[in-house]
């Protein structure tokens, strides 16, 4: 996503919408983004579908900052989007917890 300009931060609601250690899909405008809430208390956002076979990444398992697609166990870094050992990568978007325990995500456009 480096080629595309990121827009302003969007507030997508309270952090409690995502159970710790899981992910959920959020619709921001016309775009669907997978957002994850780690045990370390961090928030990460990635593209919603696995580049391999379009698996729903929000239904994946996460541990540390690794995300595993539920369909074929492809492993990606939540921080960089890179898949270990391949050239494949996910789009990742800046995300954080703001004051008031809300989630803010920046997406292109």
């Amino acid at each position, binding site marked *: 996503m480096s080629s595309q300009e990121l827009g302003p931060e969007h507030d997508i609601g309270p952090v409690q919408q995502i159970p710790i250690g899981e992910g959920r*899909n*959020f*619709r921001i405008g016309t775009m669907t983004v997978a957002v994850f809430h780690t*045990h370390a208390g961090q928030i990460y956002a990635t593209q919603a579908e696995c580049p391999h076979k379009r698996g729903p990444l929000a*239904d*994946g398992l996460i*541990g540390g900052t690794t995300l*595993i697609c*539920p*369909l074929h166990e492809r492993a990606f870094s939540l921080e960089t989007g890179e898949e270990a050992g391949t050239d494949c990568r996910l789009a990742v978007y800046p995300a954080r917890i703001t004051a008031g325990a809300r989630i803010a995500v920046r997406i292109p456009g």
Partner: protein
Amino acid sequence: MKQKLVVVGNGMAGARAVEEVLARGGADMFDVVMFGDEPYGNYNRILLSNILSGIQDPTDIFMNPLEWYVDNDIVLHAGERIVEIDRAAKAVRSDKGTIEHYDVLLIATGSRAFIPPVKGIFDGERLRDGVFGFRTIDDCTAIIESATRCARAVVIGGGLLGLEAARGLLNHGCEVHVVHLGRHLMEAQLDQPGGQMLRAGMEKMGVNVHLEKSTTEILLDPDGKITGIAFKDGSTLECDMIVVSAGIRPNSEIGLAAGLTVERAIVVNNHMQSIDDRRVYVVGECAQHRGKVYGLVAPLWEQAKVFAEHVTDRNADAAYHGSKLATKLKVMGVELASMGITEPEHVHDELIQFTEPAKGTYKKLIVRDGRLVGGILMGDISKAAYLMQAFDRESPLPEERLSLLFDIGAPAQAVTIDEMPDDNQVCNCNGVTKSAIGACIGSGLRSSTAVMKATRAGMGCGSCKKLVGEVVDFFCGGAAEEDPSIHYYVPTIPLKKPELVAAVLEKGLRSVSSVFRELGGGVEDPIAKPALASLLATIWAAEYEDERDARFINDRVHGNIQKDGSFSVIPEMPGGVCTPDELMRIATVAVKYDVPLVKLTGGQRIDLVGIAKDDLPAVWSELDMPAGSAWGKSYRTCKSCIGDSYCRFGLGDSMGLAHKLEKRFRGIDSPAKLKLATAGCPRNCSEALVKDVGAVAIGDGRWEIYLGGAAGAHIRKGDLLTVVDSEEAVIALSGRFMQYYRENAKWKERTYDFVPRIGLEKIRAIVVDDAEGMAAVLDARMQASVDGAYDPWKEAITPKTANQFASLVPVDLEA
């Protein structure tokens, strides 16, 4: 400026060595000159017995006809024997006076038949008329010519070659006798029983065998013609021709004369160089490496390769490390393969054998530390290719030892890994070929785990994991490294399952996150989460702290995820039975939610496929049926036939028993899925013999219980645990076995691997006989799990987590 490579000896070793040199671009480095004392091109000496038996013509066994030498610019001096090597002048001289200078010399003079010191065997310097060696095409032609005129031939020597010669002689119409010094035939390759069976086989074909006979004299008539042979024990045997096959002697005299170190043969280092002169290489039967002289062909091929790698500078470190000996006997009518040692040598050596004398079948394997160190196969040698490879590469053997001797259940392994084409797919799920695995080894990976991680091989259905391991081992030349983590329950926590269970109990860890924190150094391995969740659920039952994020998506939303991200819904239907009302509700739901596919499953249930995650709670509520537990590593279902309620052959109430089993064990977590079946009679319409647990009614209220069956990625008939006399006993013993399995199986280890790994005897001792006093504890723990189980579809009413079934959380951007 090219160097000159002179090769003394044009046999299989010399010619093969030159081929290997040419294959490495040696034609640009060397002018090649070869000397051979036979007047032919090079031929395959191993096939001489086929010439003798008349199966092949001499022209059939030429490997390199004379044109090959011309085409490759090799100067061949056929029919010339080298009589002198002048190492100071770096030159050789032949018996015909030809002198060639060399830069590199290869001695490959091979060996000759050993002629034992028997009175009358020589006539002056030469073998007496009617006495033959068995080493060359000329020997063969002379033997055949003589045999047609003879009534009775004797072969001295009951080794591999002697027996091949004897069998060949039979085809020429004479009576054939083998006299052998040893107590049984082929003692280098066979044990006593094997030798006896071979003798019976040879005699059945018409070869007479005389054992423990030491030949002392060739008996002659006054004209010097052979009339028989005499033995040390005073007996004699009439004959008019003799073939001597009493072993071989290396042709190493030329090396001795040249001042090279010669013991049993010319002594070489690991590069196949004479230890006295780096310009002189020696390969084949005239070479002695680490005290050993090899008389078989495989070592020779390896030596030729090492020589070529080294002499062409392809690999200055090319080294020969000795060969392991395995051989097949080429005697028409006798199938025999032998490798390594013939008797166990250590107390811990495992002996596996099978004998069927009436059919002439004898199989004996000696296993040490899980590797094959010796073997004899006679009669049926269908497993020889696999076993010889396993022996040669010292690869680990399957735990099911029976499969070493016979092809059972699984389809025969048609090709060895050696023969497998490079583009063959090893892992079909992820499209990983043999050559792709080879490339990983080439780039430095050394363990199956590392290769699987890099290629994803074995990470689909997992059924090829063993094959991946074998291919990795093949490319590592049998030296694949074992990743220690394969013994751990999960790779990031260095504890085996019993150790992990002990640590969890001791520290009272009830959640997956606490296990990572206390035992895993704080590292959260996402792949390990479901494995740990399953284990904790088994250990703690109702006290387990269910962190949903540790569960695979199927276990978070209680359905099986499909390729499009939708889910399947399978309600409980014990024994494949439902009421008409339930059937109508299923139909109503399928219509209302526009279910794309309604499918009967292999487990006798109805599957509504393609339900959106958001619709799951409503679908469950409207079905108003319990969950069928069709998504997880857990008890899945119990299949059943109609049984004695309606079937005219029924001997037991299979439907009723299936219902009771399912109601008791539904949804119980386990290391891998558990599929059960009950059958009302031994016709087994419900396939109870190929289930993790199967019960078969045999009449009078009695049931057989089978364990460890499978008919999925693996096919295995279940093992009969025991016969019980009530349904209650089936339920009790099944539950006790399942609990033992839950506590002791590795993650994802199905019962078809678990039962053979633990051993049926041990399982029977624990589950049936309570020999270890564990039964009450196992039963109590299973009861706790049963008591702690709940219907997860009740989460339709009270979701467990935020947005549990939301495929999309809407965002109000105006907020």
